[in-house]
């Protein structure tokens, strides 16, 4: 399952036809990330078609990677369906079964394929029967139960309690503040998952192998942390923007621990370091730096480049690469524990108060002029924090703008109205100087 470089890019599937504008990518490593992802994806679907085990669901990627198990995330497959303009097609199949349209999301969209299996239409030739369904980090367990039933696949559901009475200040810098009982419970959930996966896939679990994956994953996280600090904390203009960061997400979210992914991140670090040392800007004349504090507009990544020429305004992001700092787990003696701790931190922070503290600190560190937040969260976890993030930012004199958008429903996106709001926001910032 490795040796990705041996897969010619020509064999990879063509990129989906995005409805929105394509983003500009100014790092060579961004092109490499896209190519690597395509190659991995092509190989994965080829292997799956040849009968290779795969897990459909969500959970600790490092564990799946270390067990040589492919992972297809419902949210990922659903977003490709949407990108191929198949949202209505598959959501229609879900509607026909009597589910309420308002429950629709990326996570549930592949159910449309279960109800209407049409391999000639579906991305990657459709979804074969998964070896296992794993429900981890879920919002609604019922969705995963429905997948298991429709595919006829065995399921393991993991709960993931994560709230605790209090979170210390500057929580992202420490590792020892999480409730030990909660950690132990979550690790037991992982242990159950490992036994389940070994039973249903026949793939062995090796503690030392996972430890090795985690070592590489930590090394990758350290590089991502350095990359982020170099790019956004250095005195000069940013060498890359949210566009390049979002291109990196495919690797950041699913390939931590692979040797080829580590090699890639090392290369990205060298490239960013050179650019920073040579004061090479992603956008010449950068004057305004905005932080995008929500789920990206996956169907319209070009949105983030729209004010670069007109206003010298760039976007940077907070939900992915900046998270690397809080992922590293030097103590890997219990590999499952380390795998749990490095992932389970939520995108914006473990509570509204802690998310607000983090976004203020990042805004200061990254020299942010304004923050754009989702008025309607993609998930209930992150959405609970946005208003308090905005309030904390305003107290610190950092402007915040709410945009009401759905990250998966491109049909509901009003490009003109959204651009107008951001333009006005930028011009207000300019006017206040």
């Amino acid at each position: 399952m490795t040796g990705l470089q041996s897969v010619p890019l020509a064999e990879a599937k063509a990129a989906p036809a995005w409805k929105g504008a394509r983003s500009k990518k100014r790092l060579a490593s961004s092109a490499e990330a896209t190519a690597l992802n395509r190659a991995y994806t092509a190989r994965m679907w080829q292997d799956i078609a040849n009968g290779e085990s795969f897990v459909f669901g969500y959970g600790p990627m490092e564990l799946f990677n270390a067990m040589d198990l492919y992972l297809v995330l419902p949210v990922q497959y659903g977003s490709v369906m949407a990108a191929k303009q198949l949202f209505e097609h598959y959501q229609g199949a879900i509607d026909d079964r009597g589910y309420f349209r308002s429950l629709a999301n990326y996570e549930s969209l592949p159910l449309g394929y279960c109800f209407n299996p049409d391999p000639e239409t579906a991305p990657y030739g459709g979804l074969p029967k998964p070896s296992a369904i794993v429900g981890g980090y879920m919002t609604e367990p019922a969705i995963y139960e429905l997948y298991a039933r429709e595919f006829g696949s065995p399921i393991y559901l993991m709960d993931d309690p994560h709230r605790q009475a209090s979170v210390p200040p500057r929580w992202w810098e420490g590792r020892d503040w999480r409730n030990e009982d909660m950690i132990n419970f979550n690790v037991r959930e992982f242990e159950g998952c490992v036994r389940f996966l070994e039973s249903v896939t026949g793939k062995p679990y090796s503690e030392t192998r996972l430890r090795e994956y985690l070592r590489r994953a930590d090394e990758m996280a350290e590089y991502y942390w350095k990359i982020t600090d170099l790019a956004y904390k250095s005195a000069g203009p940013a060498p890359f923007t949210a566009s390049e960061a979002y291109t990196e997400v495919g690797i950041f979210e699913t390939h931590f621990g692979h040797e080829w992914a580590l090699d890639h991140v090392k290369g990205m670090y060298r490239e960013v370091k050179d650019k920073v040392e040579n004061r090479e800007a992603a956008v010449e004349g950068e004057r305004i730096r905005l932080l995008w504090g929500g789920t990206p507009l996956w169907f319209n990544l070009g949105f983030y480049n729209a004010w670069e020429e007109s206003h010298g305004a760039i976007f940077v992001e907070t939900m992915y690469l900046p998270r690397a700092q809080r992922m590293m787990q030097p103590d890997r003696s219990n590999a499952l524990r380390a795998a749990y701790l490095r992932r389970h931190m939520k995108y914006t922070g473990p509570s509204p108060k802690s998310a607000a503290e983090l976004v203020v600190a990042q805004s200061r560190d990254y020299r942010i002029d304004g923050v754009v937040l989702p008025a309607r969260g993609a998930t209930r976890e992150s959405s609970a924090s946005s208003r308090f993030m905005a309030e904390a930012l305003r107290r610190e004199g950092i402007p915040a703008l709410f945009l009401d958008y759905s990250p998966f429903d491109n049909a509901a996106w009003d490009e003109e109205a959204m651009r107008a709001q951001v333009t006005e926001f930028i011009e207000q910032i300019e006017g206040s100087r």
Partner: protein
Amino acid sequence: MTVLSLFRQVVENRFDPDALDSLVSFGGRPVIGFLDTGFPEELAIAAGFQPMLLTGDPRSGTGTADPYLDLSAPDRVRHLIEAMVTGRYDSVDVLCVTGGDRWLANTHGFLEAYRQISATPDFGDVYYLERVRGTYREHRDYNLHLQREFRSYLQDRSGAAIDDDALAAAITLTNETRSLLRAVSALRKQDAPRISGTDAHTITVASMLMPKPDFNDALRQFLASEVPTAAAQSPGLKRVFLSGSSLDHGRLHEIVEALPAVVVGEDTEFGDRYAQAPVDPSIDPMEAIADRYTFKFPEPWAFGVKRRVGFRTDAAVAARADCEVFLHLANDTSVGWDFPDQRRALQERGIPVLALADQDYAFADAQAISEKVAEFLSRLHGEHNTMRKAEAEA
């Protein structure tokens, strides 16, 4: 004053703990507020607290809470938080938020963050009691561990140890409440019941607001002296079963019963279901509490589609319902994933289902709902519930 009017007054005054105290006397006990029926009231009672359900007010706006709430926050939570931030629950001593439903659980983080913005109102202590979503052995054991921690907290807060005898007594008390509520439920299932669905809902909510011994006495009196003399519902009324999103107010019952029709049961947490699954008094009380709150009917946010659908279907059949009205409140993203299976299972048992999707918590357009339900009921034909009566009796 009749017992029923006392229950109504209690529910009417639920936003004012001091008024409730005057009405039913909390006996000087500190009040602990809870948000859903996953809260182990037995522990609070044994520790000398008065447990009290906190709800939103469907008659209020949400203008104070709105600036701090995401647009996708469910209306029920929006109204609940409005009640909190406008000081309606100021005199609650401790607020316990239980895990499970993600939005209700987020109330804990909301209040923590809100405190940074405003010193008032004073929410008192806010305790977060996690509750995991499955029934695996580890899940039950973790719930037990968390409930033991909560017991320790209550002991520290009250300054008095909770001994097992006190806990056993609290279990006896809440089981008695459940038993009496099951008697109410059984009366609703009769032909031409003498208790309306609206009144039954009021009684159930009152049981979560009043001191349990007083409630139990009052309900016994109600069953003995008021029910036998109450007017029976017309035998020709359509028998409606309610399902879907949990409602902590009775407006949907009122709308349906005004048609007229009779609501003969619900599978929601503030309806019939609150009375089910007594705590086993024959085993260690902490173990029994952990069992009850882990293994009771799985909420929509928990693992267990098959179990939920089976339970709900059986409940509607046992109520000899002519039909079911399935409510889905807007942004209630847990509720609805079972709906197609539930509808299919009910239809196979001869019970048609009407879905009210994406409704607002306050039913601002009650007329539209009333017309929709009326139109649905008008399409039901034949002698009602004959087949289901035989099935239920079998």
